[in-house]
């Protein structure tokens, strides 16, 4: 059976480096497509006293997507998760995304979207985020890459399916149901 068969759940154990074979992208190693797609997990320490600013930012993004549902469409996302957690007396931020494009290829597009939607402004609450982020896209990309912790295991119940394929299938289901309704 094809290893990319959507009907057969798949798991992938990933080496420590985050890739099986070093393949260079424009900004660094390319991370592989796994059963759930491409993705990143960015973990960074929150600057002291900035936790509420991040929570407020969460409410802002909710409003943004409410009024502009396609604001992030270009990123070909499946899902994004933002998490705050504590270790000892410090607060950490985890930002985890699953999407259908290799992030080396679309780094600048992502930053442009992050800037337009305010996602980048959340990053200013993180330690080590470049002060000159507005004028220094390569430094922002380096921050993201430096704080990305690759998964060592990923599992997909319906592996290697893209967001577009899911949406297409649901649209067809909807159209088919409509057609059957019309035939009553």
């Amino acid at each position: 059976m094809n290893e990319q068969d959507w009907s057969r759940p798949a798991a992938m154990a990933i080496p420590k480096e985050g890739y099986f074979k070093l393949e260079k992208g424009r900004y660094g190693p390319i991370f592989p497509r796994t059963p759930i797609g491409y993705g990143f997990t960015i973990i960074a320490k929150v600057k002291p006293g900035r936790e509420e600013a991040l929570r407020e930012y969460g409410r802002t993004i909710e409003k943004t997507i409410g009024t502009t549902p396609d604001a992030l469409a270009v990123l070909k996302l499946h899902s994004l998760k933002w998490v705050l957690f504590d270790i000892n007396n410090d607060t950490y931020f985890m930002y985890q995304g699953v999407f259908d494009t290799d992030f080396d290829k679309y780094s600048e597009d992502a930053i442009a979207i992050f800037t337009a939607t305010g996602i980048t402004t959340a990053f200013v609450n993180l330690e080590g985020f470049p002060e000159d982020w507005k004028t220094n896209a390569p430094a922002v990309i380096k921050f993201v890459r430096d704080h990305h912790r690759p998964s060592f295991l990923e599992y997909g119940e319906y592996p290697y399916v893209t967001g577009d394929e899911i949406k297409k299938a649901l649209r067809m289901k909807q159209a088919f149901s409509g057609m059957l309704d019309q035939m009553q």
Partner: protein
Amino acid sequence: MTVGAQSGATLELDDIQHFLVNRTPALAARYEFLTFPTSGIGRAWLSGILGKVGTARTVGAGPPDARWVTVAFTWNGLRSLGVCESSLETFPEEFRQGMAARADIIGTTGPNAPEHWIGGLASPDLHAIVILFARDVAERERCREEHARFLQECGARLLSSLDLEALPPYDYAHEHFGYRDRLSQPVFEGTGEVPTPGSGGVLKAGEFFLGYEDETGVVPVLPKPDVLIRNGSYLAYFRLQEHVAAFRDFLRQNGTTEEAQELIAAKLMGRWRSGAPLVLSPDKDDPELGKDMQRNNDFNYKGMDPYGYRCPVGAHIRRMNLRDTGHNMERRRVIRRGGTYGPLLPQDAPEDEVERGVAGFVGCASIVRQYEFAMNVWVNDAAFMDLGNERDPIIGTQDSSFDFTMPKRPIKKTIKGLPAFTTVKGGAYFFLPGIKALRYLSAGASESSSS
């Protein structure tokens, strides 16, 4: 001194080399690739040629010139001219590494890989390029002899050279496959030019020239020092061999009539060879449309051809300018310059083993964001636009393992195992300095020489 914000309206035309601003009426050209045995020799060469370099202000402003000179340097070339390490390390990584080191990233692999490049272009000894555009071959030859004498005099060494000539008929620009060229060029602030319909808005000068606001509305962080960087640009040079006989064979194999062959040629490019876009003229050529600059670029994809029934999603021009199907497009535009080399292969002539092709430059403010993105994503990413197993059919790295799909009702037509119609024979990244920067470099690249 730091680089301050400059609006496009004050583009410093006196300090910008003409190359990316003015298009010259040249029918011949010569590129010479140089190495400087010592920094003194490099500076002597630059001092001698500096006065011949045309500025964006002067070129085209007075009586017609017969030749136009441009000079640019690799990162190793800047070092050979005496630029200090603290300045050299501020240049972006892609420029420091050079094109050959980044071949895997831009996808020039297999027969296109640097180990097969010619003319010493992959060598760290490549320091400079002097680009000569000439009104005709006679003027080119006169300049070649003059420059050869000067090279001997100052001790700079010619690594290799390439002579270029326009292909007949001379009334329009086209390459060896026969496609009309120069139909889509970005327009930027400070020139007063108006984009042709469909060519997008006027772009911020900082997309192409260093020291100006770019499309983000700010001046990006730049290398140091200001005197070296200001009004400069980057050039990605490429020499692309065109396999004309193989291309014509392919058309014959996939089209039983001349009309069918022309349609295949148009599908690969996204335009008929006349220049007429498939989106506007899907079923037959329209040469009048092809040469009409007010109409031949005035179309989009999402609105007019979302599924690619007219222009396939993987066609060359649909990859190189995504128009309304792309995102962040204003940050991906580039200025193209160059020409054709090698003799025209007569129609129906067999392969003659003579190299012919196009050799050109992509001008931009960021090689990694503009040129490398286009090569890595638009040209050589097999997953581009979810196509799955396709690369650019004209300039992509092809090895008969990729497809080309032409959407068609009721079912699409897919050509399996597309052959390579082109091979990269060399390339390099250059920095194209402003005029004051050239003086600074010729005087030893020290701060005291910048005043």
